[in-house]
């Protein structure tokens, strides 16, 4: 049973022109199957952030194709791209990036607000997700009343609220201490096992090792792909690697 691809990059090139043209990404091809857990590693300047921005539909490639949730990002207008980002991508940031004046519940519900989801429905969904990340009793707290680990859980709940094709985590444990880091990564594992597609950018080996495979970036190219044995997921133009998976389903 061939698995669908959540995100696919085909020979993607991204060039910034700040004086000298800089090739942030120089011909990257990568397929991220649904339900997979991929880590991206690389030194700074290797193109991690650019890759994140492209997969997160925040930016468009200079050349090549980025397909997210079955749609080619480069071909979309700003509005469509924003819509795709809102529905198919969930962000988890190093600095949490919660809205400071919104309560935990409202932060989680925020992406659905922009999708025009009814208020009651929104709140129900957000409350449910907060329960699942273990913050059911913190729904009415403001971000500054929460610990770092709790904030990151709120952020994770927010990333999941629209049931996205992929969750993008950028150094998700960078601002956390060792214990909370373990907690949040356990939570990632938990959701991954529930079928969520995870893409984590990190420069820490032990964080990356939670994934099925590690993609090493260097100077805008994929240096190598390290398979951690979970599955033989396709890492190049051939996304046909298979794994018996409950694609997208909620099989806790």
């Amino acid at each position, binding site marked *: 049973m061939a698995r669908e691809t959540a995100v696919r990059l085909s020979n993607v090139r991204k060039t910034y022109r700040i004086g000298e043209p800089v090739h942030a990404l120089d011909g990257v091809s990568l397929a991220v199957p649904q339900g997979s857990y991929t880590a991206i590693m690389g030194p700074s300047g290797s193109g991690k952030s650019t890759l994140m921005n492209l997969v997160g539909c925040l*930016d468009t490639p200079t050349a090549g194709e980025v397909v997210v949730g079955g749609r080619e990002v480069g071909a979309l207008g700003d509005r469509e791209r924003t819509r795709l980002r809102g529905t198919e991508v969930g*962000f988890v*940031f190093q600095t949490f*990036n919660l*809205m400071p004046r919104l309560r935990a519940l409202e932060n989680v519900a925020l*992406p659905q607000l*922009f999708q025009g989801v009814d208020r009651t429905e929104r709140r129900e969904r957000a409350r449910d997700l907060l329960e699942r990340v273990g913050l059911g009793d913190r729904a009415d707290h403001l971000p500054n009343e929460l610990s770092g680990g709790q904030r990151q859980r709120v952020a994770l709940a*927010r990333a999941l609220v629209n049931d996205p094709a992929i969750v993008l985590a950028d150094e998700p444990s960078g601002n956390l201490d060792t214990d909370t880091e373990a907690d949040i990564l356990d939570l990632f594992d938990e959701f991954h096992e529930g079928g969520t597609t995870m893409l984590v950018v990190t420069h820490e080996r032990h964080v990356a090792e939670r994934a099925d495979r590690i993609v090493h970036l260097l100077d805008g190219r994929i240096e190598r792909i390290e398979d951690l044995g979970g599955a033989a997921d396709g890492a190049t133009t051939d996304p046909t690697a298979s794994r018996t998976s409950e694609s997208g389903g909620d099989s806790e």
Partner: protein
Amino acid sequence: MNPLESLRLSWRSIRGHKLRSALTTLGIVIGIAAVIAFVTLGASLQAGIIGDISPDDQRNVYGWAADPDTEGGPLAGAQPVFTQDDLEAVEGLEDVEAAYGYATIQTQAISNGNETVAQGNGLIASGPSYIREDRLSAGSQFEMGEREAVLNPAAANQFDENVTVGDELTVTILGGERTTLEVVGITDTSEGLSPFEGFESSPRVYVPTDPYYAEQASGLGIGGGEGGDGGSDGGDGSGESTGEGDGSGDDARFLAIIVEAESTDQSDIDAARESATAYLESDDSDASELLDDDLAVTFQTSTELLQQLQDILDLLRNFIVGIAAISLLVGSIGIANIMLVSVTERTREIGIMKAVGAQNRDVLGLFLTEAVILGVIGAILGTGLGLLAGYLGAQYIEIPLVYPLEYVALAVVVGVLVGILAGLYPAWRAARTDPIDALRYE
């Protein structure tokens, strides 16, 4: 995102910066309050003035001689040129019902029996029909040549024991001379009866020009020298006496005269005005001796005089509304400034919202809503404050309160408009913020 949600989120961020929002709103509050307070006062003042013209006043034309280039209200630049002869001749004209002089005699005090009150307003000397019969609440008009007076309620009630018809009062003229008068009537209003008097409520004593003005002007009868009767109203003209029983060599010349037309029809009024002017400018009149290129006779109805006053009021109001509008402009710049600061400060929040799927129009809507909320709050508070200030002002200068509701509505509209205009550019900047940069923003 629906408008209600925008409202909710915007309100949240306004409450998040209470002091800043309050100060921003203050500019709008002051601007709108100033506009409303002053248009309220202006409208009230006009109502106070226009409401005071009794219909029977409409047949009067008020005349004086002044340099034609003089600007201003009634009596501006007026010179005493009209003699009693002139008035009698004018009254004899076909189109004229009555003509009499108008003058004020400066006074120091009025005594009723043993009680004396200060009275600086003076005596108002004019003809009997100056006070219309239907303006009397008691008694009758005074008669020419008699030492009689009609008081208004404010003058009658200023004594411990109210003055009534039949009482005798002693008046101390400026300079110390005393004269007596018998009260023959009380009017029904304490406000002025003609534009010559002004319109404010104050104690007034109406007397016949003869004998009071004639005596004062000629320096006879009242018992003092000519220098004793002060003021601009002192006649210094010469001519033949027509005053009954005074027999003085000097006749009073009047600064101001009142000519009554036969009816309130505009054509009758114009006819009376024209014939009176024609006579006074002809060689038959005493006044013509003094009239030349720089001194011409002007006759105006109280409506026309009010129009001048109203023009001045309008000018004043426009001026103040202009100042208030500048304050509104400053207020709107304040809003724009605060919104720009707010956009910069919340760059990261904008980035977050865009990352989780906020469209440009959502962000635009949020910031615009915020600016409009500030504008509306400012407009509402400013309207309240302005209405209150207008009320207090009207109370203070004792005029009837009139709220120009169309201006109140306008103020609210302007508040919203100011909010939109001031918020548009910052909101647009917020909307086109690049989420990648915004998320990186520290």
